[in-house]
């Protein structure tokens, strides 16, 4: 029989909410721990909602706002959701300050149907973007990354925000609804439209990659 030695048991890390409470009471080391926990995720979110160029400013602004307001964090939502709301708002603000060239919309990549409501494409065509392995065969990694970024940029902003939070950051739909201030049904609808557009866009990119010079 093995008996656990209490002195060697690992003390669990304090929860986000406990750290936030300590930070709100003025414990700077607790806030630093929250920064350490979330800096990578906030940076990645900012890149996905804006660009690598804008992400550093958004990262700083997010944690500055969190630092200023952590004392008012009441734990009604999870700390991560609360922080993601700040980061999302900072990203949207940053995006508004950029004079964007109108991106060519992705509507052309929505699925097509015949007059009977059946898919107009063949199963083979529909499967081109059937997974990372299929795309890996058609596009090199750098091209796929560039196409993915282009696809996100060309989405309507409200689709992009919902898709990034729900599908790329893996937030529950209810949390995305809370962050964006919309109903869960609207989140599902926006995410769905984004998936349809991006699926078609990747399918098109993979087909072109196979038939032109972007092959590995």
């Amino acid at each position, binding site marked *: 029989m093995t008996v656990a030695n209490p002195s060697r048991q690992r003390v669990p890390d304090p929860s986000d909410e406990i750290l936030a409470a300590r930070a709100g009471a003025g414990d700077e080391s607790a806030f630093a721990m929250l920064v350490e926990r979330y800096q990578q995720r906030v940076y990645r979110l900012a890149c996905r909602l804006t660009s690598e160029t804008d992400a550093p400013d958004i990262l*700083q602004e997010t944690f500055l706002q969190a630092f200023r307001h952590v004392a008012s964090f009441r734990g009604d939502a999870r700390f991560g959701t609360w922080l993601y709301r700040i980061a999302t708002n900072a990203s949207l603000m940053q995006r508004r300050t950029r004079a964007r060239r109108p991106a060519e919309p992705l509507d052309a990549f929505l699925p097509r149907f015949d007059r009977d409501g059946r898919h107009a494409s063949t199963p083979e065509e529909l499967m081109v973007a059937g997974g990372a392995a299929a795309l890996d065969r058609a596009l090199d990694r750098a091209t796929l990354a560039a196409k993915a970024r282009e696809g996100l940029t060309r989405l309507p902003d409200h689709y992009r925000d919902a898709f990034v939070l729900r599908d790329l950051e893996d937030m529950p739909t209810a949390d995305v609804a809370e962050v964006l201030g919309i109903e869960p049904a609207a989140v599902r609808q926006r995410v769905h439209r984004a998936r349809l557009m991006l699926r078609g866009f990747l399918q098109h990119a993979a087909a072109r990659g196979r038939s032109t010079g972007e092959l590995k």
Partner: protein
Amino acid sequence: MTPMSRVVCLSGVDLLADYLEGQLSPEVNASLEQHVLGCERCQAFVASYQATPAILRNATEAVLPEDLRVSLGNWVRKWGSGD
């Protein structure tokens, strides 16, 4: 869509997001599954639809640069000191 109406590819696509989140009524859910089981094109479509988020997730992964991590740490210490 009413529970009794027949699912075709077009209406099935519109139901996919709600299907994947378990938001459909049992009747509509069963109609959709029945259609997809018998439709090769929808099977291919659903597979690529479900694969899309993971492809985008992997392709847009971004790692915080070390110099930015250091800068952020410095900013946080500065805010803490009241500067």
